C-alpha cells in the first residue's frame, strides 16, 4: 500500500484565525521563536495498487476540487510517500 499526501493551506492573503490564535498562545508557553503560524490541512490518500501517473493525476484533481476550497485555500503539495508504514520523518 502506498500513500499520496495532499497539503492544503489557507491562501496567504486570507485571515487564518487558527494560526493567529496559536501564535498568540506561544509566548505564554515561553515559545518566542515564531513570528507567524498558519494552519492548513494534510490529507493522506491510500492507494491499494501502484501509484501510476494516472492515480497521481486523480489525486491532484481531488485536491483541487474536493480537498480544498479554491476561494480561500491553495493546494501546496501533492506527492507520494513510499514506505507504507510510517510517514516521512
Amino acid at each position, binding site marked *: 500500500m502506498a500513500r499520496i499526501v495532499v497539503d492544503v493551506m489557507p*491562501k496567504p492573503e486570507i485571515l487564518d484565525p487558527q494560526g493567529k490564535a496559536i501564535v498568540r498562545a506561544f509566548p505564554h508557553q515561553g515559545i518566542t521563536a515564531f513570528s507567524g503560524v498558519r494552519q492548513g490541512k494534510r490529507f493522506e490518500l491510500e492507494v491499494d495498487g501502484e501509484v501510476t501517473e494516472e492515480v497521481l493525476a486523480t489525486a491532484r484533481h481531488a485536491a483541487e476540487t474536493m480537498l480544498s476550497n479554491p476561494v*480561500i485555500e491553495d493546494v501546496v503539495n501533492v506527492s507520494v510517500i513510499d514506505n507504507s508504514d510510517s510517514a516521512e520523518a
Partner: protein
Amino acid sequence: MIEQHESQQTDSPQQSGSATQEAQGEQQFHLDTVEHAAQTPDTELPWAELGLKEDEYQKVVEILGRRPTAAELAMYSVMWSEHCSYKSSKVHLRQFGEKVSDEMKKDLMVGMGENAGVTDIGDGWAVTFKIESHNHPSYVEPYQGAATGVGGIVRDIISMGARPVAVMDPLRFGAIDHPDTQRVVHGIVAGVGGYGNCLGLPNIGGEVEFDPCYQANPLVNALAVGVLRHEDLRLANASGTGNKVVLFGARTGGDGIGGASVLASESFDDSKPSKRPAVQVGDPFAEKVLIECCLELFQAGLVEGIQDLGAAGISCATSELASNGDGGMHVDLSSVLLRDPSLTPGEILMSESQERMMAVVTPEKVQDFEAVLDKWEVEYSWIGEVTDTGRLIIDWQGEVIVDVDPRTVAHDGPVYERPYHRPERQDAIQADHFTGSAADADRPSGAAVKDAVLELMASPNLCSKDWVTNQYDCYVQGNTAMAMPDDAGVIRVDERTGLGVALSTDCNGRYAYLDPYNGAKLALAEAYRNVATAGARPAAVSDCLNFGSPEDPEVMWQFAEAVRGLADGCLEIGVPVTGGNVSLYNQTGTEAIHPTPVVALMGVLDDVRRRTPSGWDATADGQAVYLLGTTADELDGSEWARLRGHLGGLPPQVDLTQEKLLGELLINMSRDGMIDAAHDVSEGGLAATLAEMCLRFGTGARIGLGEVAERDGVDEFTMLFSESQGRAVVSVPRSEEVRFKDMCTMRNYPFARIGVVDAVNDALDLMGTASIPLPELKQAHESTLPQYFG
C-alpha cells in the same frame, strides 16, 4: 484590472509618481496628497472602475473644489455605493419615518438612521434589534459569507451599547433538488451556526424556503437582538474636541476590497500582491472577545461614542463618527495595525476586515481603556482625535491625503429617483387564479385528504426544519424561554421579573410577487400574528428588503410598492419601523428573485414564563380546540398551489385592523390563562397548523370541520388548504371555555369550536374525512431535509 489600468493611463499619476518615489527613496507608494491633487487637476482617476457614475464624480470634484485624491476617491466611492448610501431606495424609505403616529413613537428611544433602533421595554430596560442581508457573499463562499453576516449584525448591536442576546436567520435557497443547493445549504447553515454558536448567542428562529427563483441568489438575512439599561445607550458620534479615537479588534487586511483593487494603481511597487481576497473570513472567537471587552468598557463608562466597522470599513466609521459629532476628526492612517503591510492608504480606508470597532475616548480615560483591552488581549491603536474644524483630515506618513467635510461623505451621497412602472405582465399574473386552473384539476377529498396532508407536510417548505435548527445552539445564556419550532423566539431580559421579548421574522415572496404592496403587508401581518400567538405585545419592526436590480423599472416598482405597503401597514397596525437593510441586485441575468421584504417584529412579555407554545401536550387531553377567524377561497400563491406548480392570482386579503384585534385577543387570553396552546394559520393553511400543533409535543386531536366550513361557505378542501389571514388555532381548558367565548363575542371576533385534544389515539383525526396517525405524519414531516442533505 491593475495591468489594464496601468497600460491605459500612461499619463496617470504613476508617471509623476515614479519620479517622486525615486526622490523619496524609502517611500513605497506614490502618495497622492491633497497638495498634489490641487496641483494636478487634470489627472484622470479610475472613478468608473470604483463604481462611481460620471455625474457622481463631478459632484465630488464640486464638493472638494478640486479633484479628489486617490484616498478620497476611495472613500466617496464606497460610501456612495448603493450598499452604503441607499441611493436608489432612500426616497422610498422616507415613508417609514413619515407614516408614524405619536403613539408609535412613544417607546422609541432611537429611531431609524442609527446602527440599530432602540425600544424602551420598561423597568429601565431597552431592546435593540436589526436585520441585515449577506446574500452575495454567501453565494460566493457560503460558509464564510453566512458567518460574517452574523458577525456584522452582532457588531451593530454592540455599537448601541447593548449586550447581544440572540440571533435569527431567515434563509432562502434555490430548488431543493438543484445540484448547487447542496453546497449552498451545507455551507450557509454551518456558517450561521459556526459563527453564532461560537459567539454564545442562542439562535431562536428564522426561516427556510426553497424556490427556484433563489437559484444562484440565496438570501442570507441575519438578525441580532441586544438588551441594555437605558443609561448604557451609546451612539456613533465623535464629540468633545481633543478626545481620542481608537481602532481595536482584528488587524486590517485586504478583505473585501477585491473589486476595488484598481486602487493598487497608487503603487509602483511591482512586488506588491495584486490579489486581494474577495472573501472575508470570520473569526468568531475574536468577536466573542470583542463583545465581552466592549461590555466591560461600557460598564466602566470608558467610551463616549462607538461605531462598528462593517461595509466601507474605516471610511464609514470615521466619516459617520465625525459627521454625527462635533464635525471634525484628525486621523493618522499610518497608525492602523495591518495584517498585510502592502496595503495602500486607499485600501486601508476601504478594507472590510471583520471584528473591528472604533471608539472615542476622553484623554483621562485612555489608561483605563487600555487596561480593559489588555485584559482581553485585544489589539488596538490610537489613530487620531476629535477636532472642531468641521473637517475629516487623514494623514499618511506625515502627509495629508484626505481633507473633506465628513457630512459630504457620510450623508450627502447621491439620491436617485429611479423610474419605475407596473410590469405589463402583472395583470395577466393576477388574473391567473388557482381555483379552476389546470393545476387545480384534482382536489383531494375524503380519504385522499390524508395523502394530501402528508404530501404538504413533507414538502420542502413545510417540512420540519430540525435538520437546520439542530445545528444551532438555542440554550446558551440560559434565557431562552421559547425557540424553534414555535411561532416566535422568546428571550428573558430581566431574571428577577421575567420581563422579556419575543421575535419573529416572516415573508412570503410568492405573495409579494403577486402583489408587492399587499405582500409586504402580509409579511407584517404574519410576523405580528406570530409574536401575538406567543403572547407578546408587538412593539417594533425591522426589515430586510431583498429585491432584484433597481435599474429595472419593474423591479423598482416592486420595491416602491413593498415599501409603501409596509409603511402603510405599520401605521395601520401601530408599530414603528426602527431600522433595517436593503439588498438590491439579487438577480441572475434578467431574472430577479421574488420580491422578499422580510419583516422582523419584536414584542414584549411582562413575564416570559407565560409565553404560549404552538402546540398542545398530553396534559391538555380533552381541551377544546378553537379556530379564530374565517376562511375564504384564497388558494392563490398558497403552498398547495406551489405543490401543483401554480403561481398566479391575488394573495390572500389582508386586514390589519382584524390582525390587531386577533393579536389583542391572543395576548389577553394568554395572560389570563384562557389558552394553553396557540398557533397561527399561515403557509399551508389550517391543515399545516393542525398538523404542526399535533407534532409539537406528539399529541393528537379530533377535528370536525363540517360546521365551520358551512358557516364560511367553503368546501372542506378550501377549509384545510386556503391561506386566509387573521386566523389562529388555540386549545382552551374546559374550565375556561365560557370566559373564552365571552371574550371573543365581546370583541366581535369570529370563533368556532372545531374539536378536542386527544392524547389517547395518537392521530390527527379529521373526523368523517381521514385520520392521520402521528407516527406517519412525523415521519413524513421529518424525513425531507435529511433525505436531501444527509
